[in-house]
């Protein structure tokens, strides 16, 4: 079982859209996939029409894998299950602060899924916190959507620095350009500069697309309602590239 986190400390960069579409294509490729929506906003759960339990269960999240299992829900698609987010997940940092060995908590609970799933996709909230550090340790690959703007570039640099300072392996970080508007010269220039500086950027870029925005209207991955769109093609290719990268991981 591999764990892929869709992470950025910046909001609105396309983490949820990426999590939803990658999990969808992973499942479609035959991998038993579990998407865990860690963002209390619950956007990826919403895209799959999955409602969370009415009970506040965040405080049990990190105790044992069995607590998570109870909250798994089938998506509408073969091989894809979801643990929907709950508003109480906003307290994850406070909860983790109270644990010993908090950084390993997430990794420990996820271990229980290895018999049932080939892939776990984590849709992460935008922050850099105890939860984020648990995510960095639990994940085999930290997929980072980067909008090619100055601010995003700065955020990405901060992430790289954070990994270095805390001795987290930087090779887990796999960035790709998101919400790209090719006609904008700033986007083009930033992409060129960042690609030259950080060789780990994936080749595929996700365009800025109204079809991706429409996921909220259709409450479904792009493939379901815009099969022939450029955005759908981009997610297919992104999954292919991510999947190849994942296979190379020991």
């Amino acid at each position, binding site marked *: 079982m591999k764990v892929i986190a869709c992470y950025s400390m910046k909001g609105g960069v396309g983490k949820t859209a990426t999590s939803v579409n990658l999990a969808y294509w992973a499942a479609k490729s035959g991998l038993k996939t579990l998407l865990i929506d860690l963002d209390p906003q619950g956007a990826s759960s919403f895209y*799959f*029409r*999955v*409602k969370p339990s009415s009970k506040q269960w965040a405080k049990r999240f990190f105790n044992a894998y069995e607590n998570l*299992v109870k*909250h*798994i*829900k*089938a998506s*509408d698609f073969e091989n894809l*299950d979801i643990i929907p987010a709950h508003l109480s997940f906003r307290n994850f940092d406070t909860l983790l602060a109270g644990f010993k060995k908090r950084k390993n908590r997430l990794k420990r609970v996820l271990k229980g899924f290895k*018999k*049932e799933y080939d892939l776990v996709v984590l849709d992460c909230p935008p922050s850099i916190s105890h939860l984020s550090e648990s995510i960095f340790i639990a994940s085999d690959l930290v997929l980072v959507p980067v909008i090619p703007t100055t601010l995003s570039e700065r955020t990405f640099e901060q992430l790289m620095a954070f990994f270095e300072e805390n001795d987290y392996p930087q090779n887990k970080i796999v960035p790709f350009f998101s919400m790209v508007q090719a006609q904008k010269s700033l986007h083009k220039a930033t992409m060129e500069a960042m690609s030259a500086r950080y060789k780990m950027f994936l080749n595929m870029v996700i365009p800025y697309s109204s079809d991706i925005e429409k996921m909220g209207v259709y*409450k479904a991955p792009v493939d379901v309602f815009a099969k022939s769109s450029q955005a759908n093609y981009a997610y297919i290719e992104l999954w292919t590239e991510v999947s190849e990268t994942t296979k190379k991981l020991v």
Partner: protein
Amino acid sequence: MNSLPVNTWEFNEGVKNTDILSAISSEFDTEINPATTSSLQFYDDFDTHLWKANYLLCQVNEQKFQLIDHSGCINEVRASSDARFWWEFSDSKVKDKLQKLVGLRAVLPITSLNLIEIDFSLRNGDQKIVVKGHLTQSMVGDKVTCYFTLQALRGYAKYYARVAQLLRPFIKVKINDFGLRFLLMGQDIQAIEPKQGIPLSLTEDMRTEQAVRAMAIVMLDQAGLHVDGVIADTDTEFLHQFRVNVRKLRSLMSLLKKALPATMIDTLKPRLSSIASKTNKLRDLDVFIVAQDSYRAMLPANFESGLSELYRLIGKQRQQEKNKVARYLSSNDYKTDVGACAAELSLNATFQTPMALKPVLQVVKKLLLKRYHKMLAMSAAINSQSADEKIHELRIEFKKLRYLIEFFVDLLPRKRTGKIVSEIKKIQTVLGDYNDYCIQIEFLNSYVDDTRVEMSKALSGLIAILYQKKTEERPKVESALAYFFTENMTIEFDLVFEAAETGDSK
């Protein structure tokens, strides 16, 4: 891991899909996929090896077959519609499995199934799929049966329970283990019915003549079951099994002749001998053709053309011989002979000999002891210089001994008899291998023809190799005999088959 309910129900007769869907759509949005229709042709061999091993072989189109195991796992294979033998399927897991399960048997169509299937999903108020379902309509002749499978989804079990509740008024019965096998079991498929026509029930105190008559009728009947397959030349096993049953019948007559009236022996012996002899040549040719690959592997490539010439000749002879056998088995002569045998066996017992009146188990045990001790003496006379005929005679004795045990195995102590039979099988393999080399050499010798140079070269090559193998096999014969005929085995025979005192074979 959660195990989610998946259940199938049969609906009451007359219930339509629309009735079901309107019941469900009162509470759920129903999303129905287009119906798929399929006409599946199922195959098995005469002995229904696939069915018995929980497999289904199904032709899905002109180029493709599927082998479905007990868990529903499907393996596909390409083969033309007229593929009948395992070697006619393309290299695959299916081919390997067929080789293991049906061997030399041909697979033939046994039945077909016409299905209409519809997948559908039920959505709740949030437009989330909460239950999945599958409608199956099976059509056999004019009869249409509807089945409904509901699959619960993880996290949505309460919706599953609700749908099941809505459907309750339409349900006739819950089906366990629903699948193609279940649907086929609902049909009256003659091909998968047990083949034995006449049941045999022996008791240990049955009088010997009566027991032999009852058993002989079953054997004659069993042989007859294979006649159509021989005439149609469906596969070589039909002739083989026909001959096995005739041979067993002849052995039974011969082993227990003292319990039978002379008129019966006079009627059956020449007729059965004639029936068997008329099929000898075809069987020899079949054996040689079946072993073709191993013969080809024995010789270097430069013998290939000679060997191919030989196989062309043998193939032609087989065709002629097969027609001859088919004509014979369709003839009035054959039918009259079999009819005479059946009529004779069906007569009431006449008890003309003292043995005829004795309880069969007592007679059989005595006979087994007698034969064993006779074979022990024959074995003692065999050494490295003994003629092949002597080994052949002993091989025949072993065959008769095993037949005699197997004929009456239900009356004998199961466990200890089983161990003896297993030892007999081992020595039969060694003796059989040795005999096969002798027979093959003789068979090939009969084809040496100076006017066919290449073919005769290949024959000489094969004969030389087989002779070498035969020579290597010979010491194994003596070792196997020494291994079988031990003091312990003699004691075991005496104990199991109850000699008056150990060593007494009278």
